[in-house]
């Protein structure tokens, strides 16, 4: 009975702690939005963050996009040729990437590459009292450090997802058309006919924007809220990657269920 009591207490404490932290994160998010105006007025700060989050993530995004495209090309051809519709390979590759794989895989990579870096940077700034020093110099760290990094991530994410999808389609074309010999004209014309800008492309962009907000929010919050020790920063980075991955996959389900119901 005592053991059950202890478990229930622990469960209760964890639930209350979790809800409290979620509430704190929500208030933090609102504060970041409140101080975002100043970031937009200081464009060089924002451009620097887009460079760090976006441009420096390009290599991993492009290489991964290419490999995902290559795999899609192989798998897609293998399945489609069973039904005698290997000409539809372009459609399959493009829709898979634009609707799902582009936003989701790019966001997962972005969380591991850029999200973790943002958490580490903010966490270390906190650990070495740089955020406090800034605050004591009457410069709000939320406006000067957090908001530019948040928006740098939000702006980068859809662009990276677009690059990922483009590279994936190229990979699919390489395998399908160049290596296997699917008709080049059919590959592109079927894709152009079947892919709707509003339904497929735009929904994909909306997804990647939402993922960008989620990942950037988690990354800046975990950095800002970490324990100011080496262990605290390392835990915060782990949490950023884990929570971001879970948030991306859960949000993807929610968004997909609203966007693509086949009705």
């Amino acid at each position, binding site marked *: 009975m005592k053991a059950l009591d202890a478990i229930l207490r622990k469960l209760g404490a964890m639930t209350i702690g979790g809800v409290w932290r979620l509430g704190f994160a929500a208030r933090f998010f609102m504060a970041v939005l409140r101080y975002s105006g100043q970031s937009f007025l200081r464009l060089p700060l924002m451009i620097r963050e887009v460079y760090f989050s976006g441009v420096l993530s390009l290599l991993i995004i492009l290489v991964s996009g290419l490999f995902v495209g290559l795999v899609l090309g192989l798998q897609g051809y293998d399945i489609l040729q069973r039904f005698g519709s290997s000409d539809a390979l372009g459609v399959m590759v493009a829709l898979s990437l634009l609707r799902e794989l582009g936003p989701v895989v790019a966001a997962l990579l972005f969380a591991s590459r850029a999200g973790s870096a943002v958490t580490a940077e903010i966490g*270390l*700034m906190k650990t*070495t*009292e*740089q955020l*406090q*020093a*800034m*605050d*004591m*110099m*009457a*410069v*709000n760290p939320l406006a*000067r450090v957090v908001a530019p990094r948040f928006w740098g991530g939000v702006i980068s994410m859809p662009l990276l997802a677009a690059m990922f999808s483009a590279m994936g389609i190229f990979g699919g074309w390489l395998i399908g058309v160049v290596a296997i010999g699917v008709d080049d004209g059919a590959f592109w014309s079927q894709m152009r006919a079947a892919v709707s800008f509003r339904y497929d492309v735009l929904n994909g962009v909306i997804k990647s924007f939402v993922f960008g907000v989620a990942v950037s929010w988690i990354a800046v919050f975990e950095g800002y809220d970490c324990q100011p020790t080496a262990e605290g920063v390392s835990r915060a980075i782990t949490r950023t990657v884990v929570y971001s991955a879970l948030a991306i996959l859960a949000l993807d389900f929610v968004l997909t269920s609203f966007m693509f119901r086949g009705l």
Partner: protein
Amino acid sequence: MSPSVPGDSLVCLDGVRFAYGEREILRGVDLAVQRGQVVAIMGGSGCGKTTLLRLIGGQLRAGSGKVVVDGQDLGRLSTHALYAMRRRMGMLFQFGALFTDMSVFDNVAFPLREHTGLPAELIRDLVLMKLHAVGLRGAQSLMPSELSGGMARRVALARAVALDPMLMLYDEPFAGLDPISLGVTGQLIRRLNDALGAASIMVTHDVKVSLDLVDYVYFVSDGTIVAHGTPEEIRTSKDPFVYQFVHAEADGPVPFHYPAPPLASLLDGGVA
């Protein structure tokens, strides 16, 4: 024995209490600092000195009592007003807290660029003047990772005085410095304070350097001011706490042993 009449003080704490949750750190602190003074707050580790400094800087708000800086009660200030107040304060953190992604020059230029809107040439001149004052004009293009601990502290000092503050706060300015850097930092603190006509408050446990440097000393123990006076009064004090601290005695009012059951109880088969 109080150093000044609170009315003409730049900083005045009146019955300040503060707690982190249930844990009470300060239990009614009264303290006053006049313009032009360098004041040391001393005490053992974890006695609430740094908390006191944070209250004066407005980073923490007192649970009860008043923290008045330049006639304004910090507890009643809005964030905007507090930031306006902080533009006239400088703080030196224990390890400098330099921005690691900026050069020495950009670190010192940071507060000027954020707050003044001065043209770049003028900011350059001001930064070089401040760096010259701490003897590091030649290090302007170095990155913080290329500096020694003492140099980083001096750069941070140049940054803290960039806006010519009326009040300087120092958190353990001598911790971890070699004897030369320690002497240089001490002299700089005094010289800058006199040149700026500011008031300085330093939290430290370096008795020897501090007593040669400061105008007044407060001793904090267990969340209250247990003694205060001029360096001369402190040196000749018979107060057991002050005596133990100044003469670095291992045992005294601050016990050597962490609280534990009496040794005799262990002999009777008790558990430690």
